[in-house]
């Protein structure tokens, strides 16, 4: 029994070291990828009065603007859809989305990209992305927002 105990303790120690090493590698990789591989994690771009989203400011006029060689899009995610209803961009140009909600929480998930934004009323989310493939990209709401949640699907078009 004494002998068995020592063998187990040796394996135990090796396993814990392996676990710690694995986690350290993961953390380093996450940090490295975040810094170098086009970070699409949404950040806050200020706050807003949710009850005035539809009547005042940039979001009252949801639109895509071309600014120099880039695009800026002001997007409303509402129950149950998105405005502007259709967005078009040229491939290879940087697009910066500003997104907010006038009612409840939604999301802005662009399929086949890493854009996945939690849309929270009162908060303005900002995310930048450069589409490298032309085509149609579904936009999907993946946060429960009420009875029409499953219908809340739109699309954006990337032109060659």
């Amino acid at each position: 029994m004494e002998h068995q105990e020592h063998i187990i303790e040796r394996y135990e120690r090796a396993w814990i070291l392996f676990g710690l090493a694995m986690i350290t590698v993961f953390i380093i990789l996450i940090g490295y990828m975040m810094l170098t591989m086009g970070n699409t994690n949404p950040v806050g771009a200020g706050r807003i009065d949710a009850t005035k989203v539809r009547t005042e400011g940039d979001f009252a006029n949801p639109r895509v603007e071309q600014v120099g060689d880039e695009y800026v899009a002001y997007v409303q995610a509402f129950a149950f859809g998105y405005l502007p209803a259709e967005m078009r961009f040229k491939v290879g140009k940087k697009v910066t989305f500003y997104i907010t909600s006038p009612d409840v929480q939604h999301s802005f998930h662009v399929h086949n990209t890493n854009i996945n934004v939690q849309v929270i009323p009162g908060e303005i989310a900002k995310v930048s992305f450069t589409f490298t493939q032309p085509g149609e990209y579904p936009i999907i709401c993946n946060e429960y927002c009420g009875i029409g949640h499953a219908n809340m699907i739109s699309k954006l078009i990337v032109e060659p």
Partner: protein
Amino acid sequence: MAVKSFPKIDVYTGAPEKKYALYMMMLGFAALALGTLFGPLQAFNYGGLDLYPLLKPVFQNYYQGLSLHGVLNAIVFTQLFAQAIMVYLPARELGLRPNMTLAWVSFWMALGGLLLAAVPLLLNEASVLYTFYAPLKAHWAFYVGAAIFVLSSYVSIYLVLEMWARWRKANPGKITPLATFMAVTFWLMWFLASLGLVVEALFLIAWSFGLVAGVDPLLMRTLFWYTGHPIVYFWLLPAYTLAYITLPKLAGGKLVSDPLSRLVFILFLLFSVPVGFHHQFSDPGIAPYWKMIHTVLTMFVAVPSLITAFTIAASLEVAGRANGGKGLLGWIGALPWNNPTVLAFLLGFLAFIPGGAGGMVNASFNLNQNVHNTVWIPGHFHLQVGTLVTMAAMGTAFWLIPHLTGKPLVARGMALASQWLWFIGMFIMTFALHWMGFLYAIPRRAHISGSPIAMEAYKESSAWMVLNIVSGIILLIAAILFFYVIFATALQNRRDPSQVMAEVPFTQVISKPEGSSLALLTERVWFWFGIAVVLVLLAYGPVLFQMFTNMNPVPGQRLW
């Protein structure tokens, strides 16, 4: 014709804590039975099959069913099971009786809160899912009932700490027995973890009564996830405790290391709470460096689970070899697979391995972008809470109900079948959900089968959808078998003490705590609790301070 005589004696005289544990657990299983009925409906939904129109007179929509499924299974069942197990085990181990008056207070609080919250849920007045994100606004009875229900767990915390203090007074200088140590650290972790939910409930109750016009949705989310991640350890640790304390003995072996098991629970006490931002990676309003800090802390909370994987596997190997298993893998076949409790744990842990790997993906700041709020997420947690946690509870019920009541287990074959089917059903379903979420971005919690737009958008994943229907049918059969077994066992008239385990199967250990410096170090529970508080203050303090001092309230909406 059976003639009923007056009950001769109360079988619980001399062991009233058995009656308490039985009532808590059976109330939990009753909640699970109702909540589980909605499970197959969810699975069918993700197979494109909409059965909700058939339920229309009683249940109004998919989201009402989903709210019942989530609240009853994830919040109600799990807490009641913890209140049964994590009070009963230390009471038995220490040979002490909890304060029975307060024990029943906690039971009636839990039942009262549950019934109060059930009314709006059943009337479609609280179809806000178990995350109840503001500004979706439920009926006040939902928030008040849920708060009373959760507060009943504070009574359980007191019960265990009081028993522990009594034991320490009578046994100065001794190391706390293992199950009690686990229960104490578990309840302290939950106390620290639950504070977010308690504060959130104060806001939501004031809001639902109309005392405040709005609440800040980001602050509510943050408070929710402050509790919402550690709550998964609140679900998981009773299963781990049972795996450490009872599984080695039931399998015919011994627990390999007592001190290491204590380290695991101290690590959970430290790292369970300051990790909630990994549910908010996609949220605006929280700076990326805070999210990265929580990423690192989340990775560390994997360590105690990795140690558990080793310790449980090694203990099972000891058991398998003691049963005559030879060779590198021969011990696996020598385990008592025909014991429904052991089977439930073995299959549960098997599912937990891919579930844990998926959890690492979710915890990664970058990778999470691909899966956030897709059906990958319910795929993940149905491997963890839906499989290991639930199967540990189901497996334990197979010996615990007989132990508590003196009534032998009925239909052992059905018990075994229920566990195999549950495991197979969950495996098929979670496999499909992971792929559907990752490859096709199919959103979680969406009534896609009722939406032609959605079915058109997701038609490429139709092959995976078929798997959901298959799994829903398998899981429904598994659930019927399981609930038949436990309710037929508990409700039969036959009592036969010779057919049941008279004692809790507490394991023996190979590496003992006496003389272990690690065990002595972990024994300073309050010191570690203090460190846990400091970690939480560091990881959450500045962000929460900022949010509390800059609230941006939004009025409520009812959109279902």
